């Protein structure tokens, strides 16, 4: 009887574990294995074991290193930006003012739009020839902008689009976190004479630390694995300015037919991502535990 009860939680976990195994761990292992094989460039299409050759090839490839640099730069900006903006948005829509439900709906609406549709819509709006944004700039007698066509503007524009898409979604988590903070605690702080900023810093931020950790880690994973916007909007250009690592790996595998190189790139990337996430957990670990 005791044994059966002890086993029950594990039985409930089995379906989820099986799905994770099939959809996560097996592909990771398959990818790792693929990274040690050649491209199958023979008349029979047979694969050859090449050891670490695919990794050596990558390390010797300036395009790969440029892609790593672009990905790190993109993430160094977009992750803190998304976390900060979504926290601000959550604080804004957490106010108890008349009509707040309407504004909440309005501000959270982009969640309902798929990332692909949003990217295409922004691509049209920011089109340098016929986009509405340049139309407005022209109307205001301001110079039109190349946006995605310019190597200097493409990355900031992509960050803007990705942030617009991501912020409402991550704000939902902060909103849930904020609504979980007992009102009495904030009231007590106010009675004790704490300013709004002091209450935010001394009460809200510590009590939101678990939510912040989750949002930071989740945005990091989402943005490190970002694929659709560069694929749909910039094709990695101009001059590799938006050649994020996932897009680069996809191109190696499915445009150049170099599945081994692509798998090696993804394997390395997974290792880097795990280190970054571990560091984030370490830095944002709640101090009061």
């Amino acid at each position, binding site marked *: 009887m005791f044994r059966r009860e002890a086993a029950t939680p594990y039985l409930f976990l089995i379906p989820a574990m099986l799905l994770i195994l099939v959809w996560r761990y097996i592909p990771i292992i398959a990818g790792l294995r693929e990274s040690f094989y050649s491209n*199958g460039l*023979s008349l029979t*299409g047979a694969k050859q074991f090449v050891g670490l050759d695919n990794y050596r090839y990558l390390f010797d490839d300036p395009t790969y290193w440029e892609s790593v640099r672009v990905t790190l730069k993109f993430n160094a900006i977009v992750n803190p930006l998304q976390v900060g903006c979504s926290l601000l948005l959550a604080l804004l829509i957490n106010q108890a003012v008349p009509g707040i439900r309407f504004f909440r709906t309005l501000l959270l609406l982009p969640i309902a739009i798929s990332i692909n549709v949003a990217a295409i819509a922004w*691509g049209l709006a920011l089109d340098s020839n016929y986009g509405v944004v340049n139309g407005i700039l022209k109307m205001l007698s301001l110079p039109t902008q190349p946006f995605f066509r310019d190597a200097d503007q493409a990355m900031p524009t992509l960050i803007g689009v990705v942030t617009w898409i991501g912020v409402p979604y991550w704000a939902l988590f902060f909103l849930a976190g904020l609504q979980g903070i007992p009102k009495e605690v904030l009231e007590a702080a106010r009675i004790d004479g704490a300013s709004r900023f002091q209450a935010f810093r001394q009460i809200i931020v510590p009590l939101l630390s678990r939510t912040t950790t989750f949002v930071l880690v989740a945005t990091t994973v989402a943005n490190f694995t970002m694929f659709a916007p560069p694929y749909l909007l910039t094709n990695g*250009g*101009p*001059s590799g300015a938006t050649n994020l690592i996932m897009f680069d790996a996809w191109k190696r595998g499915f445009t150049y*037919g170099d599945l081994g190189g692509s798998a090696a790139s993804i394997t390395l990337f997974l290792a880097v991502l795990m280190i970054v996430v571990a560091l984030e957990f370490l830095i944002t670990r709640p101090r009061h535990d």
Partner: protein
Amino acid sequence: MNPRVHRRGLIKAAGAIATTAAASRVYQMPAVLAQDRTTITWLTDLPGDIVVNAFNEQNPDVEVKIEAVSFNEVFQQNQVRLGSGSDSLDVISVDAPLVTSYGLRGWLEPLDDAFPADVRSQWVDALVESSSYNGQLLSIPIWNSTQLFYYNEELLSAAGITGPGPDERWTWEQVTEAAQAVTKDDVFGFQFEQFNRIYQLQPLPQGKGSQVIGDDGLTVEGIIDNEAWVSAFDWYQKLHNEWKVAPQGTIEPNELFINQKLAMCVRGPWAITSLAAADLPFSWKAAPHPIWEGGEIVVPTDSWHLGVNPNSKNKEAAIRFLQYAGGEEAGRLWYEAGDSWPSQKSLLDEIVNNPANTEWPNAAFPIAAAESAHGVPRPLTPGYNEYQDILTSAFENLRNGGDAQTELTNAAQRIEREMRKYR
């Protein structure tokens, strides 16, 4: 794919047969019932219905089903599905320059027995050349292409310019001058239909006497960064940036042309039918493909080929479809529908000699047929995907103002790196 047996399908088929028989009273029992049909799948972005329907009608035991995807998806789906050894495709659409690449990977079933020499001789020689790899026929050319220079007569005459006649070949220098005269406000002077793909741009360096790839099909350093390439693509860069006569960014040159926002363009012969059918509110003409002053006549050719997936479970049916799709009847169906330019010599001769092709716009067809004589295929290299993709990025950078020498040198280095794996 195995023949499918569905009870519901059988009942439906029986019902349909009975209804048709009752209605026409001329019904004859078909030799093959629906459940015995072999279904084969063709992944393509081409308007294949007209030929597929004709084939299906003549071959009651085979049903070709089109899996329609976009142009870019054809390449990606082929890579993913053929690369994984999938049998989900029977008939493969192969862009001519990829035959070598697919052949090297073992993604195409050899077709020599199904298409002996006398059958192959029906196609234009350059197309047969690009169908073969390692001495084996791996694909068949269903279409062909050539390029023409199209212009809006009214936009040109408003700028005081008379466009070239049907036998007159303008130089790129003349095109530049006319484009500068025509460009104003939101009207652009000139653009290529495929403005960032090597297919339509390779005549620029080739017209200056350069190769597009080394004889080994792999070397590009010293070729795509040579003087001819740099000077040709410096002109291309200036079109977009200095003279601003060619539109930048994501554009649809065909839409711009029919909306009178583009005065001149280079397009394939398929545009003749579509422009004529569009009943445009302006007068347009076509002329031979431009050349550099004192340069060589070079016109892009090649088009789509069909191949058979070696992992297909229905190779025999797929080959039968290829035999039909590569034949004169299918070529005529596609040509008459205005979808393509034929790969069969007999049809090209017919176009030139057809008395109906003396009046405009049909008079443009013999110009296109004559241009086929100057056709050059795209580079035959196992790394065509890499070659094309890296050059497309370089061309985009040039459209955005990059320096021709820098962009082409970078592209040459990147392509050389990617080609290493084929050496």
